[in-house]
């Protein structure tokens, strides 16, 4: 009898404990306003806080969330969305077509918005009825649905947003499964279960606490000592050590982003200052000098897949006509000789993260065998963005967190004068093809355009794509229901502690 009651007591205490989910983040998120936000890590918090019109599944298909159905019409210039009925915001306001119109217009027009580019083709938004909105586009825009699975598709409470003005991010009010409780900068973000959430059956926690812990060793230590239930971005070198521990489980999926080396071929004077920037043969030789398999094995502990395009070989839009080139030092040397630059030298601007530093050093050592003399210049991130924009670099080791639609990894980096086209690449044929690929809705046809683009880019090589990292998550083995979506976000729907 006594042992029975003790058992009951124990069970009661574990039930109480398991109601809070503690997640260790790799960085401190920036502002929690979907219109202004700009960091990857912030999107992890948003996925519990703010529901979006659409979501992504494990295979990158667009699936309904706040919108239940969509229809293209008017030569693909009009997207009509049916909204989920009976959804309320955290402040009790109704989520209806007017709120959607308000949020999309806020994303487009608010000063300082970072969503403007995402929604550029959306000319206007009409309220058709309480649960139907119509997006009128200036031109067909294939990535739009994918864009609406991210921050641009998050709907905020108009009442709260109007009241808070440009301090909305300090106390965001959305329609996600959890609502905002408090935030202590660099310490914690606390969310609590929103009882009126439309999909409340899928929520099995009362609270989520996000704790930014920058140091990966310490993040893992917190998991192992039981202070955290879940950590994102486990270091690849820690996988082997954790594998043997049955209390924990590791999950992984290949990212939608890429790691590559952007070469300055047309951005200011520096482009002409190196053989690498001037001559496509030198760039080809550079690519041929790299052994991507060894790079991934050494620099990433094997936790990445090799690649040579803006999407990974697993992606449906990967162009199979342009396979990953094998390392060929002899051919690289021959190309360099033909280009009249047997020992080309250049500076590789490298962010200060340990990943980037490792990658740069391995690339440096590999390229050296073909005759390249690479100087690594570690540059603090904020400075590197500015130098990249101004063209004050020769090559730049850049990681891009990636977008669900291939256009999000391609257009802003490779189209003429696009905002993040720091390599200064500009070619009319490629521009036209990128334009066609983003205005065509049919996937098969789009894939054909991407094959042509891949072939062109493989000739010019403004960016040498290296690999696609694995998102690595480690969590208590008791935690189940994690969906491994390639965007790297942690979806809380379905997560439970057994």
């Amino acid at each position, binding site marked *: 009898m006594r042992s029975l009651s003790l058992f009951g007591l124990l069970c009661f205490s574990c039930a109480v404990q398991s109601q809070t989910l503690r997640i260790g983040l790799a960085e401190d998120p920036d502002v929690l306003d979907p219109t202004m936000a700009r960091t990857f890590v912030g999107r992890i918090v948003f996925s519990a806080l703010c529901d979006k019109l659409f979501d992504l599944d494990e295979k990158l298909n667009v699936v309904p969330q706040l919108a239940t159905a969509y229809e293209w019409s008017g030569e693909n210039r009009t997207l009509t969305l049916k909204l989920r009925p009976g959804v309320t915001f955290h402040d009790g306001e109704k989520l209806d077509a007017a709120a959607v119109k308000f949020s999309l217009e806020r994303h487009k027009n608010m000063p300082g918005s970072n969503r403007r580019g995402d929604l550029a083709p959306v000319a206007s938004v009409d309220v058709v009825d309480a649960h139907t909105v119509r997006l009128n586009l200036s031109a067909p825009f294939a990535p739009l649905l994918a864009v609406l699975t991210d921050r641009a598709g998050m709907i905020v409470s108009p009442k709260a947003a109007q009241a808070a003005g440009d301090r909305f991010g300090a106390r965001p009010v959305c329609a996600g499964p959890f609502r905002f409780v408090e935030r202590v900068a660099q310490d914690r973000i606390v969310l609590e279960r929103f009882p009126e959430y439309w999909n409340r059956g899928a929520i099995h926690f009362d609270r989520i606490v996000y704790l930014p812990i920058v140091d990966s*060793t310490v993040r893992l230590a917190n998991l192992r000592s039981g202070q955290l239930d879940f950590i994102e971005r486990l270091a690849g070198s820690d996988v082997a050590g954790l594998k043997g521990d049955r209390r924990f489980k590791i999950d992984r999926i290949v990212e939608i982003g890429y790691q590559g080396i952007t070469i300055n071929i047309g951005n200011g004077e520096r482009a002409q200052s190196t053989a690498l920037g001037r001559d496509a043969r030198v760039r080809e030789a550079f690519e041929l000098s790299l052994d991507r398999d060894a790079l991934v094995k050494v620099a990433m502990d094997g936790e990445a897949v090799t690649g040579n395009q803006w999407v990974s070989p697993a992606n449906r839009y990967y162009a199979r006509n342009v396979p990953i080139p094998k390392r060929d030092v002899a051919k690289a040397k021959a190309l360099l000789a033909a280009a009249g630059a047997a020992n080309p030298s250049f500076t590789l601007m490298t962010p200060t993260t340990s990943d980037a530093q490792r990658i740069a*050093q391995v690339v440096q050592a590999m390229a050296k065998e073909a005759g390249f003399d690479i100087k690594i210049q570690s540059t603090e991130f904020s400075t590197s963005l500015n130098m990249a924009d101004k063209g004050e670099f020769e090559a730049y080791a850049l990681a891009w967190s990636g977008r669900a639609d291939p256009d999000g990894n391609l257009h802003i980096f490779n189209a003429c004068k696009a905002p993040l086209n720091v390599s200064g690449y500009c070619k009319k044929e490629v521009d036209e093809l990128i334009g066609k690929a983003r205005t065509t809705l049919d996937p098969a046809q789009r894939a054909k355009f991407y094959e042509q683009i891949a072939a062109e880019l493989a000739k010019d090589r403004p960016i040498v794509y290296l690999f696609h990292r694995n998102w690595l998550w480690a969590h208590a083995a008791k935690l189940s229901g994690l969906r491994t979506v390639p965007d790297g976000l942690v979806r809380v729907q379905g997560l439970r502690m057994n």
Partner: protein
Amino acid sequence: MRRLLRRGGAMFGLAVVAFFVLIALLAPWIAPHNPLATNWGAVRQAPGAAYLFGADELGRDVLSRIIWGARASILAGVVSVSISLSLGVPIGMLAGYLGRWVDALISRITDAMLACPFLILAIALAAFLGPSLANAMIAIGISATPVFIRLTRAQVLAAKSEDYVEAARALGNPHLRIALRHIFPNIVAPLIVQATLAIAAAVIAEASLSFLGLGQQPPAPSWGSMLNTARNYVDQAPWMAVWPGLSIFLLVLSFNLLGDGLRDALDPRQK
């Protein structure tokens, strides 16, 4: 000098510092491997016959990197403290000796600099000068200067009121002579103690700056940057951290023991 040699601790310090300086100078001849040579087959290999101290995250020889890293770390410590001393001592003496508005101005600026966090000063200066080991040394040196200004000034003020200085002044000695001959020798002891401490701080500050991408540039080694990289592999490859950690410790300890010896040898009051 003779008194210095008589002390065991100071001798030990001198020996170790000399040993490290020698290693740094002879690096090209005594390092068993090229410190930059990578070996993909030996990534994080444990110490053994091939790599006496083990291999690092890119399969480079840790021993060779320690030997070459001695250059960067000793330079980072000594050069930056020399910069602090050569700026701080004259300015501090000026403030202490001249007094009045010169002192007031220098003291206020020094106070202001001391009030700003050291690492922030160093980060801003290093970022402004551009990332390199030399610039990191300058940034650390300048950031550590106010401590020396303050210390020098305080010592000068104390020494100024001593009888022999008053006497020298009464005899009509020129200011510069009083400052150099009568005051300076009396302020050397605390300066040395502070300098040996500052060398330690500078070696570690270089580590912090290289962690932020503002110190020694990869792949060239410094003990600080080696230790920084190693913290990602504390569990898997402890040797990556043990050797640079031990080297920093020994160097810092030796500089301090040496400083103690110098202090005792130079202090006129302990004759």
